[in-house]
């Protein structure tokens, strides 16, 4: 590797800067978001999305076929530079601020777009924080249009860093990976994976140093991509099995892999939060529209406070999540030390808002909301998936409490 990795958990891409009142969301970011919205409004209306992913529940759920996705549309997105959103300009990307990415990903969530965008963004953040020349070379490939995904989670679904069931052994020409990575997002859309692997020659105690970050192409010999059967119809998920997969020297992108992930974590959490905010906002608006037209007892059901107040509460929760999201993104862009805490706040609020909004979206749609023909379930499942991804609300709050109050001091455990 050509560059050393700085030993800080702070995201390294930008220096500490004053934090702007408008979250740094200026005309460029607004244009980017509005273009995304227009593109997706035209190219992925709900009728098309429904046909793509929900044509036949039996084939998906009983026969385990992966739901469709619009590869042509994805090509357009790539041409617009979406894979390079988070890749620095000097590596061929657009280098959009995090707050701009947040705005764009909200639109992606609002349209429940099936694509490798979010997986690729998350892989990008990790490579960016790896900060090595090898990593930069892969970032350049992403900017050129390659899709990627993180393979960093163990069999128990532990979200925090420094836990992996993949082991890297030294060989004559480099490294060899064995073991498995679980809960890999949109693996069947990815060209390569950014894999967290425990080096078998390092002590486990030194957790930062004992994890490597490697790139493994989807086509690598010895790699089996085994599809998970999941509920969400707008993504795929897989278990990666590594059987002595060779890693060359330009595929080893960080020798401090867990640390790179820690630094990438605020951006990862913010990206999932943005998707959640987008799905929640769609659910809110769609349920509000239904409440205005659907009549019961000769009145639109939105007249009744049992409908109106839950929708209002959902709006309040969504707005909390959105404001926290923009602030977290702004902290990342400003290089603030608070970025991780703020991103945990955003993810906690977005997960909880998503949970409540999803719940009410089905209940308030009543009978029709319980049927496959109603689009509500597509967002319900995408949201449920996102709520758990990289840690649910309670998980984020547990770690946030450590930041606020310090660790639990007593070694005694009360029953």
């Amino acid at each position, binding site marked *: 590797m050509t560059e050393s990795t700085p030993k800080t958990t702070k995201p390294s891409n930008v220096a500490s800067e004053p934090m702007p009142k408008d979250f740094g969301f200026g005309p460029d970011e607004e244009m980017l978001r509005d273009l995304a919205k227009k593109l997706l409004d035209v190219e992925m209306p709900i009728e098309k999305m429904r046909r793509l992913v929900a044509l036949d*529940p039996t084939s998906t759920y009983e026969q385990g076929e992966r739901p469709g996705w619009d590869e042509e549309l994805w090509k357009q997105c790539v041409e617009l530079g979406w894979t390079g959103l988070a890749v620095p300009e000097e590596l061929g990307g657009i280098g959009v601020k995090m707050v701009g990415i947040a705005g764009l990903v909200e639109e992606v969530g609002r349209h429940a777009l099936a694509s490798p965008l979010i997986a690729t963004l998350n892989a990008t953040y990790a490579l960016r924080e790896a900060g090595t020349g090898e990593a930069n070379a892969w970032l350049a490939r992403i900017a050129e249009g390659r899709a990627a995904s993180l393979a960093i989670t163990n069999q128990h*679904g532990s*979200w925090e860093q420094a836990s992996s069931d993949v082991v890297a052994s030294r060989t004559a020409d480099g490294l060899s990976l064995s073991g498995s990575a679980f809960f890999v997002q949109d693996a069947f859309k990815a060209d390569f994976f950014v894999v967290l692997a425990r080096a078998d020659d390092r002590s486990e105690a030194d957790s930062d140093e004992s994890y490597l970050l490697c790139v493994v192409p989807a086509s690598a010999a010895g790699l089996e991509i085994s599809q998970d059967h999941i509920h969400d119809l707008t993504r795929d998920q897989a278990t990666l099995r590594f059987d002595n997969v060779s890693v060359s020297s330009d595929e080893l992108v960080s020798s401090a892999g867990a640390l790179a992930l820690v630094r990438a974590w605020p951006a990862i959490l913010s990206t999932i939060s943005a998707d959640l905010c987008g799905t929640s906002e769609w659910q809110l608006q769609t349920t509000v529209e239904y409440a205005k037209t659907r009549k019961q007892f000769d009145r639109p059901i939105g007249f009744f406070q049992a409908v109106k107040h839950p929708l209002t509460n959902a709006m309040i929760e969504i707005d909390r999540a959105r404001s926290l999201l923009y602030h977290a993104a702004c902290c990342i862009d400003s290089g603030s030390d608070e970025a991780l805490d703020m991103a945990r706040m955003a993810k906690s609020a977005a997960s909880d808002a998503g949970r409540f909004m999803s719940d009410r979206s*089905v209940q308030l749609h*009543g009978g029709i909301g319980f049927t496959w023909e109603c689009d509500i379930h597509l967002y319900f499942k995408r949201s449920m998936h996102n709520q758990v991804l990289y840690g*649910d609300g*309670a*998980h984020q709050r547990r770690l946030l409490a450590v930041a606020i109050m310090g660790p639990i001091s007593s070694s005694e455990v009360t029953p």
Partner: protein
Amino acid sequence: MASLNAEQFEFQEFARRWLDENRPAPPEERLPITPLEIMKESHRDYLQDWQGKVHAAGLVGADYPVEYGGFGHEGFQGIANQELARAGTPMLINIVGLNMAAPTILAHGTEEQKKLLIPGCLSGSEIWCQGFSEPGAGSDMANQQTLATADGDNWIINGHKVWTSLGHFAKWMILIARTSKHHKYDGLTYFLMPIAGNAGVTVRPLVKITGESGFNEVLFEDAVVSDDLRLDEVGKGWTVAMTTLTFERGAAESAGGGGGDFARSVQKLVELARSSRREGRSASDDPLVRDAIAGRAIVAEGIRQNGRRARVPALCDHPMRLPLQQKVTASEFSQGNSRLGVEIAGAHSTLYKLDPAAPDAGYWPLSYMNSYGHTIAAGTNEIQRNILGERVLGLPKSK
């Protein structure tokens, strides 16, 4: 649970032994989670066969009169229900027949109706479905638009019912239809409607949000039902239906199945927590999970004891106060439980039941999504809360 007398104790021993000895081999294809999702004929045949055996053994219909296919005991069914739940043997398929049709017919039916229909409910040979919900009526149960027009000794039915679980396998439907447009509540009449093979009846399956089927819409186009199959008087349909719902809601000691499920579903959460790991530690050691599970146990026991108290007038301020709560508390209990299961399962809750890594064969997320069936159907819980506020607390009507 109330303690047992000697006869009941003996019955309990018998039930345990019988279930232990007669546990059937699982079917080739895995069964769905509740009878409401059954779509395959092979599953139906398997479960009908099983219910028949359980009934023959005296574990269903235990407290029903012998002349209607029962066994004439007292206080046996609760024991049987508990043992069935404990044994974890396959479900009883005729859930509408057992929990709604049979008790309603017993309470309101003619001698002929009881003799004709209750035995099939108990043995499972005749499957029942429910026709209480309509697409337009939505959450207002009294707003049924399906019409019944008198025609000599028959009634002609026209209309559209939804939410009819098991409708595609059902021989009978408990049906509410409008016999007068001039009276909202008193214009409804209750029928025991033949479905299977009835020329004017079309059953069309609907697909749920889970992708499962099992519930249907049923269209009536000049479908005929004999006046002999009218239950109770013309215009009494609403009153009789409320009784039916009370049976449905007072699951505690119905004709079979159901009892003991609340405590069992909390135990399932405990087991899930023990087998789930979060950040390197058993979820059952997570104080937030522990608090939540203890909370579920309290709600479970509360529902059980509400059922017990509902039968002690000296401890009830208003006769409908507890019975009318049952639908809300039971459906939200089960929704809260499955939602908690989703959270404990964490990353694994993303998995559908066919994924081998899905905990409890994918029970939690499926059960969570299906739980909305219960908080929406048969009067949304919002409407139930109106009814509670208005009928029990005496608050002015929200309409």
